[in-house]
């Protein structure tokens, strides 16, 4: 049992921290970047590709690096620390993860190769208006005529869907179950807009749109979608952890420098105690995020599912606590878009609502609560 990084992992962390920090440790730079479409920096994406980050999760034979969940978690944490706007989580971890899990060897080689080099950006078109964080599709349906598959229906919100070169689309299959398809970005009717954390999302309309089945045509891949969503959830938790750490650091720094009534704010015990509670939340979160990341590394899908729920619940509670308190302890300045902390809170809120918020997973966990005795994290 070991909760520390090895030397290579430390080196990776330092490298990513350097790259991400150079781009966005000046918050004004992030603000300028998210102001214009696509909401992130194509040059930075290229640099991430060059560093090997975009291919990190994928097998070497698919054009990737073949690194493990701990390494992906490190990248996500570091991106979270500067709330980097690049679509690493949704394009690489989520959409790429689905191609890696379900695609044929040819599809994997072609799509993941282009993803790893930064040549093509992917998006996962899955959520549908009226559904609530499921692993299945219902409104978007697939039809087949001979070997030709077409998709119809609306997907929304699709994170980074307007910019994506290639969409991974889930659809209800003719014979039941949910399948995955590849659709060229410009083959769909897309309208993009801002998300709450300065990112981008889109409405994607499919209307008899030609689509290539991902993997075996007609196969129900609900379980694969669920697992890749679970893994993404754990990586989103890593990203949230990084964001929390920066939000708390900004808060303590503000408390020791900002004066009110002739003294710095850290003179007020009520405020310092609340900062201490934020630290408690952050430390507990780090523990469960590290643990969940290691559970992903072990690889059992059922264990991953539970670990993802548990990480999501803790991150949701802590993210709201830290995000809300960071604003409150700063006061008015944190309400402004110019200052960083409000954007960190917004990003934590967005991550929480991406794949199922705290209340949603609590409900799932509560249903099974009588099925086990004491939790044993090391067994």
């Amino acid at each position, binding site marked *: 049992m070991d909760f520390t990084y090895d030397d290579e992992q430390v080196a990776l962390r330092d490298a990513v921290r350097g790259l991400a920090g150079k781009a966005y440790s000046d918050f004004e730079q992030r603000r300028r970047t998210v102001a214009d479409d696509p909401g992130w920096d194509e040059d930075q994406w290229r640099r991430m590709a060059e560093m090997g980050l975009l291919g990190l999760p994928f097998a070497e034979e698919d054009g990737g690096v073949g690194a493990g969940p701990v390494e992906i978690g490190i990248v996500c944490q570091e991106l979270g620390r500067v709330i980097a706007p690049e679509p690493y989580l949704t394009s690489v971890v989520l959409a790429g993860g689905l191609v890696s899990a379900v695609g044929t060897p040819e599809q994997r080689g072609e799509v993941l190769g282009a993803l790893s080099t930064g040549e093509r950006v992917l998006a996962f078109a899955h959520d549908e208006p009226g559904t609530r964080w499921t692993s299945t599709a219902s409104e978007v349906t697939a039809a087949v005529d001979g070997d030709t598959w077409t998709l119809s229906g609306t997907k*929304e919100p699709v994170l980074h869907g307007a910019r994506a070169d290639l969409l991974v689309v889930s659809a209800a299959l003719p014979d039941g179950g949910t399948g995955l398809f590849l659709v060229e970005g410009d083959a769909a009717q897309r309208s993009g*807009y*801002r998300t709450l954390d300065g990112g981008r999302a889109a409405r994607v309309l499919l209307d008899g749109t030609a689509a290539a089945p991902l993997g075996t045509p007609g196969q129900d891949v609900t379980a694969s979608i669920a697992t890749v969503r679970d893994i993404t959830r754990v990586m989103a938790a890593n990203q949230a952890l990084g964001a929390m750490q920066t939000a708390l650091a900004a808060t303590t720094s503000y408390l020791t420098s900002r004066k009110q009534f*002739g003294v710095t704010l850290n003179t007020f015990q009520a405020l310092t105690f609340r900062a201490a509670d934020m630290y408690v939340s952050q430390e507990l979160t780090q523990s469960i995020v590290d643990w969940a990341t290691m559970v992903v590394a072990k690889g059992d899908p059922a264990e991953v599912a539970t670990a993802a729920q548990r990480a999501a619940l803790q991150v949701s509670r802590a993210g709201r606590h830290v995000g809300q308190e960071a604003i409150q302890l700063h*006061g008015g300045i944190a309400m402004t878009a110019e200052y960083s902390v409000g954007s960190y809170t917004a990003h934590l809120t967005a991550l929480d609502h*991406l794949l199922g918020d705290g209340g949603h997973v609590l409900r799932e966990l509560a249903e099974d609560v009588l099925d086990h005795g004491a939790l044993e994290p090391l067994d």
Partner: protein
Amino acid sequence: MQLELSAEDQEFREKVRTFFTTEVPEEIREAVREGRELTKEQFVESMQVLNAAGLAVPNWPTEWGGQDWTELQRHIWHEELQAASVPLPLAFNATMIGPVIAHFGTDEQKRKFLPPTANLDIWWSQGFSEPDAGSDLASLRTTAVRDGDGWVVNGQKTWTTLGQYGDWIFTLVRTDPDVKKQAGISMLLIDMTTPGVEVRPIELIDGGHEVNEVWFEDVRVPGENLVGDLNGGWTIAKFLLGNERVGVAPVGQVKGALARAKEKGAAVLADDPLLRARVAELENELLALELTALRVVARSADGAPHPASSVLKLKGSELQQAVSELTLDLAGSGALVFGAQEGSGLEEWAQRAAPTYLNFRKASIYGGSNEVQRQIIAKTILGL
């Protein structure tokens, strides 16, 4: 003790309710209901409709358009405004500078300012907070230096809500730098078209532009624009902030928001006992808050704000935030969509969930932060 309103108060309620729901344009009320940003024209039109019926500034002296109502009637008026989604009369005019001028102003100031203030012909802005004087208001640095009969003002104000629409601004300025900080402050009224006044927008985290910085560079202000005594500004500020705390709990607004969240999220709620429990808990807390507001109203009969009004501000802002958080969660992944977007097909309420949630983080900061309220309760009420 009895629960029923008197026949007279019931009749009063019926009367204002009917007026609000029939005389104030539905389009304006719908915008309020949906949480949309109002245009300046909508604010003005709504307040003028109210003012024409004597319903805009009931808390003013009757000779200047006020009403001889009981505290309870004022409370009913305030709740019914919110229940009907009528924009509240602009606070800067109706509850801040209006009462101040009526109480501290010269006769000339009253004649000149009060009628257009009640009718929103003058849009007032508030120039109190400064970058280094937030909760510690008295440490403000904007200066006014004597120049003949008048003053020359230099400095910067911030958090000036809706300052982009402002015609005039009432400011606290330092007129004597050599005395204890509270003792050297005066209140000046400044025409915002005067050369040297500059309004700069501040973008907030909800993407909106509701607050501003206001800069003063060698701004010349006539001597007649001093309100009250020279160096008497702190007294006026306390008077004004005391008024502000009365009726601060936005009970009606939060009630409406919660009822609406239930309606919009009914399908999700029907399926989730934990979310239903959150609603039930919030409804109960809101009920307790509303009843507390009624008790405070009853005890404020002498006109002085009851210290328990800090409870209203504190709990009111917490519930406002909690309801916005619930709405966010009801919206699911739809909450990612930020603001009413042309490109999105999601329902408007879901699209507004995130900006509203972020915007209401301010509720516990502005208008006397919740830390200030706790301080007031601890010191004034509990003697700690």
